[in-house]
């Protein structure tokens, strides 16, 4: 599995498919941080934007490998593991974005301890964060929910489950927006739950356990469907899937 992950990660890096999601995520975070926001709110925004971005990284990974190359890998390691490696590589890239995004939020947000702060230096921000570690932990938990939902959306709306390129891209975008807007989705529920605490800027915005568990279930179901389809109804065309 390590070899498969290295191979998929190398495809992601060498194909430069990581550049667009990185720029998109950076831009979305910059938009969110345009006004001065409290840290907890900033972390929520960064987490929410992971849903569409991770969905599109997953799409990138699921379409990066030509069918013939995938067949060679599947013969050597099994079609299920080959597909899982692609999904995991995309999730790993999402984790890195989430960590990077959280760092940016910490550096760019208002200090958590003061409603009306003077421009705070880096050291002040880090000290303030150290005084309220729960804010960061809760923000990362929300990010984890959104990461899992984004990966699930990407797996559901792209090859091999949805092959038509136009339909797949539109579906990825639409379902990602729905996953954020609707309280039915774990990501939407987590964000609502955490924004309910919005009135107290120093409070940690915990996403709640139910959304986290639901996101994990959603991920398991969509990944299973994706690997099943990859192994049974694999793309027979030699070009990129």
């Amino acid at each position, binding site marked *: 599995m390590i070899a498969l992950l290295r191979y998929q990660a190398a495809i992601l890096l060498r194909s430069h498919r990581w550049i667009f999601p990185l720029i998109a995520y950076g831009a979305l975070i910059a938009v969110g941080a345009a006004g001065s926001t409290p840290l907890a709110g900033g972390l929520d925004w960064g987490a929410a934007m992971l849903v569409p971005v991770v969905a599109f990284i997953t799409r990138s990974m699921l379409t990066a490998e*030509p069918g013939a190359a995938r067949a060679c*890998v599947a*013969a050597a*390691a099994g*079609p299920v593991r080959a597909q899982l490696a692609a999904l995991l590589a995309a999730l790993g890239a999402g984790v890195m974005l989430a960590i990077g995004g959280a760092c940016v939020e910490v550096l760019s947000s208002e200090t958590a301890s003061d409603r009306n702060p003077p421009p705070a230096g880096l050291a002040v921000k880090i000290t303030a964060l150290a005084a309220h570690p729960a804010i960061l932990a809760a923000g990362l938990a929300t990010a984890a929910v959104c990461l899992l939902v984004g990966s699930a959306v990407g797996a559901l709306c792209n090859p091999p489950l949805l092959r038509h390129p136009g339909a797949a891209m539109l579906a990825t975008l639409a379902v990602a927006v729905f996953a954020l807007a609707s309280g039915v989705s774990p990501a939407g529920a987590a964000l609502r739950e955490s924004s309910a605490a919005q009135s107290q800027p120093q409070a940690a915005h915990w996403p709640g356990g139910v959304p986290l568990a639901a996101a994990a279930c959603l991920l398991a179901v969509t990944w299973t469907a994706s690997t099943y389809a990859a192994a*049974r*109804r*694999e793309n*027979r065309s030699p070009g990129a899937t």
Partner: protein
Amino acid sequence: MRLESVGKRYGLRQPWVVRDVSLDAAPGRLIRLEGRNGSGKSTLLRVAAGVSLPSTGRVTGRPHTGYVPERFPGTLPFPAREYLLHMARVHGLGTSGARRADEWLERLGAAGYATQPLRALSKGMCQKVAIAQALLSSPGLLVLDEAWTGLDQAARGALDAAALERVADGGTVLFVDHEQARLAGRISERWQLDGTGRVSAAPGGATGGAVAGDGSVLVVVLAGVEPAGGALIADMPGVLSCSVDAGHATVRVAARACDEVLRRVLSWDGVHVAGVRQEKAAGR
């Protein structure tokens, strides 16, 4: 390896491509799949190689597998050698991966292209890379889906030889090729697809085009043979003549004895097959 009641279709409303296939692919067998276009040869190969799971039935006892697709588009973002190193790790090879990658690129005549990006390679060169990745791990099952297409003469010979080496090593080779004479005389078994999804096994050599039956002679070129080794080969049963020149032995051997001779010679250090051809018989 055994296929047990294997059926395959690409979706519930799709027709069966192959169905109810129960066949043995024993070690040391060279098996050719035959059937018209669209009869399901590629699908059966993919199921046998484990690329695709069967819709019904199962495949049991499959050894480590190398698969060569019919076309290998060079759209991966790697140089040829780096791709092979990744595949060597995927095949579970440790530190020997790099050496084997270089060996196979050399044998297939692609050593000069090792550092070129796959995108920059010609169709034939990409095909050589695909073949190299399948052979890296000396797989117990080698599956070749028209793998010869687009190769130059020397590389076709090298692939013939590599397939025979796998068989001599006790591996199983399954292949499809549009060239009727491909590995003629060496085929142990033919799997015939009738176009309705049914597959039947027939003995090798009995049907088909140009077949080397009893009395035909094969010319095998072996690399890495010392003159002393040449003398030993010349004494083996079925060998008609053996000449050694610059480490290459040219052996004329009766087709029926060729397997045994190769089995013995290939067990020596550093010896590998550089080419196999059928000697033109009188009147052919």
